[in-house]
């Protein structure tokens, strides 16, 4: 059983924002919504580290637990998706998320938040695969095409890994082994430890 996961290799991330723009351009996301972001700590000092983060598609996703309308659901391959037509934009998922993944474009009335938008692992949404509606609401459905999410595929230094958890872990383990040192994968304890 495949289980999709993200992993950002902190040692390799160079803060080029390739993943961010790949996601935005590929899924035609409005300006202001960041499904994926890169942050840098200790900028300009020794110990500067960057990391790219989006929805981690957690095993026991807090967002699903707090959603008052059950708009968020998890597929069997672990991908957490939101139904934009069910979402009411309350923002609880944002408060529950350890990664700051849920994003809210401005809605029509009072500028209140519209339906939540977040990383789909490039797996579209609950609409029919490749339908115009799916593309408009959620962007590409690359998983249905058998392709890797854009951010990971376009990562300049192959820092961001995405895909079957076992393979991602293998690749990362191999890297850490080659380096002779290294730390754990960032975010994995929070996102995936419960299963």
């Amino acid at each position, binding site marked *: 059983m*495949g289980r999709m996961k993200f992993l950002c290799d902190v040692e390799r991330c160079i803060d080029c924002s390739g993943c961010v723009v790949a996601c935005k351009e590929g899924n035609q996301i409005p300006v202001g919504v960041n499904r994926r972001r890169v942050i840098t700590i200790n900028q300009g000092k020794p110990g500067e580290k960057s990391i790219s983060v989006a929805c981690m598609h957690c095993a026991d996703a807090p967002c699903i637990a707090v959603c008052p309308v059950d708009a968020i659901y*998890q597929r069997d391959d672990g991908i957490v998706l939101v139904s934009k037509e069910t979402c009411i934009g309350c923002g609880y998922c944002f408060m529950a998320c350890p990664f700051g993944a849920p994003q809210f474009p401005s809605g029509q009335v009072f500028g209140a938040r519209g339906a939540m938008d977040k990383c789909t692992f490039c797996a579209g949404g609950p609409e029919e695969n490749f339908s115009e509606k799916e593309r408009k609401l959620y962007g590409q*459905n690359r998983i*249905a*095409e058998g392709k890797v999410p854009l951010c990971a595929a*376009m990562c300049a230094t*192959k820092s961001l890994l995405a895909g079957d958890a076992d393979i991602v872990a293998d690749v*990362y383990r191999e890297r850490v082994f080659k380096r002779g040192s290294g730390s754990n994968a960032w975010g994995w304890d929070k996102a995936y430890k419960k299963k």
Partner: protein
Amino acid sequence: MAQRKIRISPDQGTKTESITLNPKVARRSFLKLSAATAALTGVAMTTRMTAKAATPAAVKEAYPDSTMIRSICTHCAVGCGINAEVQNGVWVRQEVAQDHPVSRGGYCCKGASAIDMVTSEKRLKTPMKRVNGKWQKITWDQAMDEIATKLNSIRDKDGPDALHLNGSAKVSTEMAYLQRKFAAFWGSNNVDHQARI
């Protein structure tokens, strides 16, 4: 003009497995990504990106009848490969050039939005001329006629060295060559490009 259309068939994976679907998404049957990872191993940096359809019926192309055309990113000199998915003469999607030997599908933020060079709303649409401090749209013929007339009169009056041509490192090698050749045929060495700075 050269326009070769290339079709690239995706790598076929070896592993395939059917999966039980979440009741919520039961009506969709999607692919099992046996190794859907853009991960590169630390040793070989090879890409394992294999996928196989669960059932042939489930696979419907995102952009039917599209063709894949290869190009090279126009930003920096690394020369990252670009796979452009074109449907009915429209560039619909920038695909990942995972098998390009230098970039291995990698892009920085500029390269990841290469398609924007073509789709940007800010692209100029017609030749323009400044008249009384205002930009005025003119036709190509008018623009080229006026420019050529003025160039010729400057050449006659002041000589060929009264023109300076700033060429470009953003054009193709062929075009760069034409720019240098143009200066030679025009009769001046006043030609230069960004490599100077």
